Structure formats: C-alpha cells, structure tokens
C-alpha cells in the first residue's frame, strides 16, 4: 500500500475499533469487547511494520546522499534539503483551520524514521498491553469487570491519539494528539471513578498536564508568530538555515523562548521536575494503563517532541542546558524517592520518572538518538515490569504493598522471571537492553560541556539498581507470605503471561538493534551506535551541526575505534555500579533485613523527606492551589458585594428619587393640584424672567 494510505490507516484502525466498542459494547459485545480493539491495534501494528519497510527502502535509496550529508556536516549547503529527501515532506490530509487570509493550518502527516520508531514502539507495546488487559480486567472466574467495554474503548482511543501525536506533520496536530492522549490518560486513570483517590488523580493528571500545555500552546503560537507556519519542515528549515547564515532576524532569545515554552509541554507530559506530581498518583488507574500510558508511551511523548524539535533546541544552548539539568535533577530526585516507597507501582512510577529524566538528560546534551534509543528500550522493560506488578496485584487480590507479601517466586514463576529480567534491564546489567541505551546517554553527557550531568547519571544508575532489586527481593524472595484474604498465590493465565514473556524477550534483545557487533569493543564484541542510530540519523543531522552535540555527533565514527578503549571504562564502571547496587539490595533485604530500618531510623528527617516525596504535593497545595482558590473566593465575593454593591448604589439613585417623590403621590386630587400650581408658578416665573 501507499505510504499515505498506511499512515492514515494506522490511527484510524484503532479508532474504528474503539468507536465500535463504544457504540455497541454496552449492549452487544460485553465481555467480548476486546476483540475489536485488539484487531484494530494489531492491524495498525502490521501497517506500521509495513511502513517501516517502505521508509527503510526509501532511506537506503537515498542512503549515499544521506551518508555524504552527515559525513560532511561541516559544509552542508543551506539550500539543500536535509538528507532523507521527500520523507521530510509532510503530506496534507485535508485543510483544517483557517488562520487568516488563505492560510490554512492543515491536518498533515509526516512519516520519517523518528515517526517509525515511535510508531513501532507504541504499537507493539500497545498490542501486548491490550492482550494482557484481556486477562487482567477479569476476576478469577473469567468474568469481565464492570466497565470492561469502556476500558477497551478508551485503550483504542488512546492508541489512536498516540498515533496521531506521532504521525503529526505540524505542531497543531501534535498538540491535538498531545491533548487527546491527555484525555485518555484522564479517563483511564479515573477508570475506577468511584474511588475518590482515582478521581482526584485523574483530575490532577489532566490539570498538571494542562499547565504544561499552557506553555506548549504559547510556544506554538510563538512559532506561528515567528515563522508564520506551523509545519515541521518549514519551521526546521528556517531555523537551521538562519543558524547557518548567521541571520539576525531570528534572535537567539526568540528561539530560546520557543524552545523553553515547548519544553514546558514536555515537562508536563513527561512529568519532569516541577510538574512531576501527577505521575505517581496516576498509578490509581488499572495496571495495564500504567504500563502502557504512564510508562511506555504517553509519558515519553515529551521526549519525542523534544527530539522532533531537535533543530530548535539545538539552536539554543540555554534551552539545551535547562533540558539536561532538569532531566538530571528529575532522574536523581525520583530515584531517591523510589528508595523509600513500598507500593510496587509507585516504585515503578518513580523509576519511570527517573528514566525519563535520563532521556531528557540525553536530549539536553544533544544525544538525541541515544535518548530515543533509551525511550525505545525503556518501553519494553518498563511495560514488562508494570505488567508483572499487575500480575502480582491480580494474584494478591489488589494488594500491591511489598511489605504485605513476599516469596512469590515459587508460586508465580513466569511473573517472577519476566520481572527479574526486566528488573535486570532496568538496573543496567550488561547485555540487556537498557544497558546500552543508558550507557550511551551517560557517555554523551560526560563527553559534553556539562560532564557533571553524566556523574549524576552514574549515581542514579546505582540507585536504580538498588531500588529495583529492593523491590524484587522484598516481593519475590524470602519466605512466602500472603496478604490477608488470599489463600494461595497463583500464576496468571495465558492472556497475561504471553505478553509478559514477549516483553521480557524484548527487554533482553531490543537493545541489540542499537549496537554494532564484531568490532571488539565492550566484551570484545559490542560497540554502541548501531542500526537504530543509522536509521534515525537523518532526523538529527540538522541538530548535530551544533557544537554542543559534538560527543553524540560522532555517530558512526564512535565505534570505529577513534576513541579506542578509553570509552569502555564507562561501560565497565556502570555495570559495576549495577552489580554493586544489586548486591547491596540483596544484602540489605535478604541477608540483613534489619539494616534498612536502622538506616531509616538513623537518617530520620532525610528518610521522611524521601518518603513524603519531598513534600512537593503539600507545597503546591500551599503555594498554588489554595491561593488560587482564595482568589476565586475573592472574585465571587467581589461579584456579590463590590459589583452588586455598585449596582445597588446606581439603582438606589432612582429609588431615592422615587422615595422622595412618593410623598407627593398621595392619590388626593388636591395634592396634584398643588403640584400643578407650583409648576404653573415656576413656568410663569420662567417666562417672565426671560421675557
């Protein structure tokens, strides 16, 4: 099929499934509702794969020029279209919004390597999660939960929205997808709407995202003001060319403002530091949702967006610095909180925050392809971890606090092994997927002008390994304990196990598309930067012109041995840290379970700070929510007292006159006659005076 048809089909298939389920699910399909959505998402996945082959062919056809362009990036001709030719052109579906005289903001799609990567990631994880949900959203007897069809309709809608976000060819359509995924997140977090905490979490997620979107929307408006277009390629070309030509028409301040406003949106969506508060609460939603939306796909939209706008960001060193700093801060901050939590899903949520921080760190130092690589690997192992947690939760009748159970590895072997593998990947154990991607990011950071970001990354890597295995040891090891009310733990059914296994396989092997083998690097076999980076290279070739991106820009050359073994010390160091973290966790939580308590007691206030998530929620409540609420009270009071008071005063003037005149209005004829006489006298006097 044609590229365009495929691109249109990809979002529409899940949407069709979702719409059908929404329309007839309640009456007709009931607990068979999943089939339509599953079919839609799977078909979309096949379309995406087909799209991938087409794009790959296209890239290879123009490959020589691409390589030349990248290789000779120092002398790129400003007038030349960037490497991947017509792929960069977005194609218009229809005219959407009129922005003044004969100027339309269109519904345009753009299919390029970055899109493909995101599509494949999103759709494959989605397929797994939809499959998993079929098992998860039922009780132990196989009956569907209340709202089963609603759940699948929302899932389908989410996949549609995410595909729109990814496929968008301009900023406005990106915003559409951006908001729609926010809506789906809202609906799915609030799936158990009768739980007040879920309802609150849904609202919070939407609102915090809106704060980000406020900035994002302004960024889009500013882009339109600056470039008079919202199309990706036109904007990027203008930025890139102005940078090349040293044109002053586009001041750096303007570009920085645009970049930072866009980054506001990314902070909201990807839960970066000041706006991270919604993500842990979002775990109130059903676990598949946490896996899909709040770990693998939606929250990475911010990363995707910054990567997509790499040209804009790369043009502003300040913005890049801020992105990196916030990423690093979030990574460390979230990891410290994760150390102290006991709710499995919350630990994973903070871990997600932390990993997203890594991605932004990578973006901030210009390693856009590495960040995307990490996004891609992270999707698999984090989804697997969440689904595993969901499996545990399902077996424990909804209990997820790791203090309440332990030693599950015997009863739930599949869950345990998949969880373990993904946990190892998360911890950054060598040869698993995250090892490659995380290491690349840290490497790029260390090589950049801000190496301290890399050091933060290394510390976080140690913490990650520790808290991951703290969770695994507490939940799956030691003697078997079950929460009250659960007679025996049992392994989940095939609907749930199959996705776990598939994702675990992904967690192991997904990293190898980004690795070059046979060059004699790490362990004598592996060098970073593989096919994945080649594939993405055209997207970031523009941005790599910037001096901040030197380290990552080495690209192909990196593995060729120019740096030799000197870069491999990092790989050894980070694997050592991972193992050290795992060892510590083992020691603390299996050998000497008293130690953590002792530490917690010894470091009382620090522990409490971590445990209460740095009191950020409380702070926001105090600083923003309450004053705003007071302001609302004031507005309403102003309405009732000030404005209505003024109105009353204005209305009192005629009322007072009427009150005065009422005395004259006695109804007696003679009274009126008196008035007449007085009037007559006045008139006559007036006439005489003027005679």
């Amino acid at each position: 099929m044609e590229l365009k048809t495929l691109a249109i089909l990809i979002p529409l298939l899940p949407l069709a499934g979702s719409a059908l389920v929404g329309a007839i699910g309640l009456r007709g399909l009931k607990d068979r509702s999943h089939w339509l959505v599953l079919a839609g998402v799977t078909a979309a996945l096949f379309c995406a794969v087909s799209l991938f082959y087409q794009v790959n062919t296209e890239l290879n056809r123009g490959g020589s020029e691409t390589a030349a362009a990248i290789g000779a990036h120092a002398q790129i001709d400003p007038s030349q279209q960037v490497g991947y030719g017509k792929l960069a052109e977005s194609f218009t579906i229809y005219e959407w919004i009129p922005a003044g005289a004969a100027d339309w903001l269109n519904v345009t799609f753009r299919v390029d390597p970055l899109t493909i990567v995101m599509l494949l990631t999103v759709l494959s994880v989605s397929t797994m999660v939809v499959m998993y949900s079929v098992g998860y959203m039922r009780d132990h007897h196989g009956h569907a939960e209340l709202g089963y069809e609603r759940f699948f309709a929302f899932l389908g809608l989410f996949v549609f929205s995410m595909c729109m976000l990814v496929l968008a060819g301009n900023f406005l359509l990106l915003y559409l997808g951006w908001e729609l995924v926010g809506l789906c997140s809202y609906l799915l977090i609030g799936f158990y709407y009768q739980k007040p905490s879920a309802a609150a979490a849904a609202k919070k997620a939407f609102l915090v995202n809106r704060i980000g979107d406020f900035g994002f929307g302004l960024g889009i408006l500013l882009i339109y003001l600056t470039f008079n277009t919202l199309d990706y390629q036109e904007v990027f070309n203008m930025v890139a060319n102005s940078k090349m030509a040293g044109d002053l028409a586009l001041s750096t301040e303007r570009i920085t403002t645009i970049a930072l406003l866009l980054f506001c949106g990314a902070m909201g969506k990807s839960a970066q530091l000041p706006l991270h508060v919604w993500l842990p609460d979002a775990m109130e939603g059903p676990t598949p949702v946490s896996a899909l939306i709040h770990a693998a796909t939606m929250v990475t939209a911010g990363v995707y967006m910054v990567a997509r706008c790499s040209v804009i960001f790369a043009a502003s060193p300040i913005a890049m610095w801020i992105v990196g700093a916030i990423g690093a801060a979030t990574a460390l901050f979230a990891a410290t909180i994760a150390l102290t939590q006991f709710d499995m899903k919350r630990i994973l949520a903070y871990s997600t925050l932390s990993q997203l921080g890594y991605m932004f760190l990578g973006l901030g130092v210009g390693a856009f392809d590495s960040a995307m690589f990490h996004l891609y690997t992270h999707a698999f192992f984090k989804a697997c971890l969440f689904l595993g947690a969901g499996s545990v939760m399902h077996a424990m009748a909804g209990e997820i606090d790791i203090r309440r159970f332990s030693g599950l590895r015997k009863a739930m072997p599949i869950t345990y092994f998949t969880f373990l593998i993904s946990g190892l990947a998360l911890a950054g154990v060598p040869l698993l997927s995250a090892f490659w991607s995380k290491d690349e990011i840290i490497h790029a950071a260390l090589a950049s002008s801000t190496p301290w970001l890399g050091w933060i990354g290394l510390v976080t890597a140690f913490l990650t390994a520790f808290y991951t295995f703290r969770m695994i040891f507490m939940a799956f090891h030691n003697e078997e304990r079950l929460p009250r009310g659960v007679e025996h733990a049992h392994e989940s059914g095939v609907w749930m196990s199959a996705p776990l296994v598939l994702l675990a396989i992904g967690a192991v092997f997904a990293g190898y598309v980004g690795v070059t083998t046979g060059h004699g690097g790490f362990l004598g076999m592996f060098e970073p930067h593989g096919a994945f980076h080649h594939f993405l290279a055209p997207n970031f070739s523009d941005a790599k012109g910037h001096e901040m991106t030197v380290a990552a820009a080495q690209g192909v050359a990196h593995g060729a041995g120019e740096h030799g073994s000197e870069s491999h010390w990092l790989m050894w160091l980070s694997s050592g840290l991972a193992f050290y973290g795992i060892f510590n966790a083992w020691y603390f939580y299996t050998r000497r379970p008293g130690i953590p308590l002792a530490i917690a007691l010894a470091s009382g206030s620090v522990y409490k700070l971590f445990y209460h998530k740095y009191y950020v929620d409380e702070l926001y409540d105090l600083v923003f929510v309450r004053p705003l609420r007071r302001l609302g009270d004031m507005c309403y009071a102003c309405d009732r007292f000030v404005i209505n008071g003024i109105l009353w005063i204005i209305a009192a003037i005629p009322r007072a006159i009427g009150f005065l005149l009422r005395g004259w209005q006695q109804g007696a004829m003679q009274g009126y006659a008196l008035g007449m006489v007085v009037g007559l006298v006045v008139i006559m006097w007036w006439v005489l005076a003027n005679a």
Partner: protein
Amino acid sequence: MPNPTALMIVGALLFAIGVVGFLTRRNMIVMFLSTEVMFQGVLMNLVGMGLLHGNIQGQGLGIFVLVIAAVEAGLGLAIVVMLYRRRGTLDAENWRSLRG
C-alpha cells in the same frame, strides 16, 4: 373709566384666592365654588386684556367662560352628588384611588 390693569390685578387676586380654596377645602362643594371664584378671576382678566388691546374680543371670550362655568357646574355637581351617594361623605380625601 378705571384702568384695565387694575381690573386684571383684582382678577389675578381672585383667581389665586380660588386656587387656595380649591387646594385647602375638603368639602367637594366648596372646592367647586372655589373654581367658580377662579372663573371670575379669569373672566376679569379676559375683559381687562380686551380693553388693553382696545377690542371687544375679551368680552366675547368671557361669554364662553360663562358657558364653561355653567357646564362645569352642571356636570361637576352631578358627579359630586354621585360621589356623595356612594360614600356618604363630601370629603375629597376619601377618594384616593389614584395613589399608586
């Protein structure tokens, strides 16, 4: 031959006295009498002005004043009688239905 201005002055005073009567008396019959006094004043003024202008038309109009006075007396008194029969009193204060 007296000065017409003097006639007008007296007429004006008569008119004003009639007005006071109309305003102050509560007996409807007396109120009507007061209006008759006012008519006298008007009549004198008309004649006086006619004299001042040296023509007869003032007196001509005076005839009509008489006509109006007769009509007014006839109708007004009929109404007074009706009102009296309705309330059993001649007090004008008793009729206040104009009050809002």
